[in-house]
């Protein structure tokens, strides 16, 4: 009798600690983001008043915010597209049946373990115009010295390179796992039919890896939108002239530099909508994928 009563409450007791963290620190602040986003703070003092969609209208008609949104999307597309292409090539290279290839794989995973701040610091040195190695190489070969972090376009490229470098390890890991699920017989059949290695790559390997690619696209979108704050803060601090002022960085500035909590909350809600969109696309595709298998 007593034992079964204990058993009835036992699972709730097991869940209690997790919800003691999740409710106040994850759910409550998210709800608050929505609430704060429809309030405005009076210029002086702590008075707040309801303002409906004002914050949303305000940021969505602000050219600076739209610029930030546009640049984030461009950055996300660039990092995801170029990053996945490089990762797939590396994975195919590392997937060869050569003794000892496993050891080299480890080296390719290392950048993913490194923090955004460390990655940024290393890249800022590599790209610095005076003592940096990249410009030394470019000068010796082509007699050019690009001002990497002081030109808007180049800073955008520099931040993208550092992000791609940091995330390839993750992508390679999944592509290697995906490559190992492709049956040898399919590749052999392609060989017998006279397909060249390049044809086999584009006509067999790439299509068969599409579930992996889709998963990685989703993950890379999330990395690019949410997780590169450290890289931006150390490499460019959003500059020059807002060229790398991505959504997350803009939000951070509105909280701590411009003190616009209402506008920042509205931006949080927009980010939330973005992530919900990505997640729904993910589950929809996964559902369809399972259906057709």
């Amino acid at each position, binding site marked *: 009798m007593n034992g079964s009563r204990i058993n009835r409450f036992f*699972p709730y007791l097991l869940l209690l600690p997790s*919800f003691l963290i999740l409710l106040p620190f994850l759910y409550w602040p998210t709800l608050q983001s929505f609430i704060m986003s429809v309030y405005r703070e009076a210029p002086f003092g702590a008075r707040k008043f309801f303002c409906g969609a004002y914050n949303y209208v305000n940021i969505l008609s602000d050219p600076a915010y739209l610029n930030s949104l546009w640049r984030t999307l461009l950055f996300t597309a660039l990092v995801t597209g170029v990053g996945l292409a490089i990762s797939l090539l590396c994975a195919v290279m590392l997937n060869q049946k*050569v003794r000892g290839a496993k050891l080299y794989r480890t080296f*390719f995973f290392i950048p993913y*373990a*490194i923090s955004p*701040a460390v990655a940024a*610091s290393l890249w800022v040195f590599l790209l610095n115009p005076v003592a940096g190695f990249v410009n030394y190489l470019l000068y010796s070969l082509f007699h050019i010295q690009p001002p990497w972090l002081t030109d808007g376009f180049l800073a955008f490229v520099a931040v993208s390179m550092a992000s791609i470098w940091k995330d390839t390890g993750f992508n390679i890991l999944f592509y290697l796992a995906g490559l190992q699920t492709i049956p040898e017989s399919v590749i052999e059949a392609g060989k017998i039919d006279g397909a060249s290695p390049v044809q086999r790559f584009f006509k067999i390997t790439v299509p068969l890896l599409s579930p992996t690619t889709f998963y990685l696209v989703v993950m890379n979108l999330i990395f690019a939108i949410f997780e590169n704050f450290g890289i931006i803060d150390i490499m460019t601090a959003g500059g020059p002239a807002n060229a790398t002022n991505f959504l997350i960085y803009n939000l951070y500035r509105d909280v701590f530099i411009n003190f616009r909590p209402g506008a920042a909350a509205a931006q949080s809600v927009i980010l*939330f909508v973005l992530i919900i969109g990505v997640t729904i696309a993910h589950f929809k595709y996964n559902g369809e994928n399972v259906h057709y298998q």
Partner: protein
Amino acid sequence: MTPSIRSKRRFFEHRIRAALGWHLLYIVASLLVLMPVLVGLSISMQPRDQIFTYPPSLFPKTLYLANYADAWRLVNMGRLLANSLWASLIVMLGKLLLGITSGYAFSHFEFKGKRFLFFAVLFTLMLPLEVRVVPLFELISQLGWANTYTGLVMPFLASATTTFLIMQHFKTIPKELKESADMDGCGPLRFLIRILLPLSGPILAGLATVNFLSMWNTYLWPLMIINADNLKTAQLGIKMLFSPAAEREWGLIMGGTITVVIPTLLIFMLSQRFFVKGIATQGIKE
């Protein structure tokens, strides 16, 4: 020499040459991938005048470690590393502990509202720090936890991914074990500690590594919540090395950066198998 032996020899020579070619390619590619770290390491061991020579020197000429000592002193690196270590250990332990209890609840028990509660845990995957950072910052400040270890770690102690993966793993352990344990009068807590946990070594090690490193690498939250220099984390130390930038002391900056990345690399090397497994399992779908 018969033709067949000769062709066999040619075959092997061809294979060895191909293997050598691959190894050469691998070595060059690995050096390229690790270049930022290797260059940083090299610069961290060069004195100022050597860093600014032209052409830049790839290798340090002497074993010069003053940059490390200077960086250590300038930002109080020992303290920062200790702060990061504590925060990462506590978050790692919290996520594992809460992941084990909640994963166990979902894997081995039937109860009212299970589906709803499970969904409520999974849904937090869609609530990254960035979508709740403003009110979270206010909440932590109101609780008086701004500028404290508590404020630094508290919001990270539970994790949907860890719960989910531990649940998935517990489900693979045969139901009969639980039934026979019930019959033998082994209580649910003892079953967890005596039977489930000993069978979960690798997955727990993988999650421990990934969770430790993710907290070690965290940047945005410590930047927001910690102001006092003696409470800052190692990642913030890197920013501190950059900020007095009248002229950047690259040797010093790289010394500090390499210092911060050494624990990451050590953990990665020591538990590489678990780390890779830990990431790989995150991709496994139901």
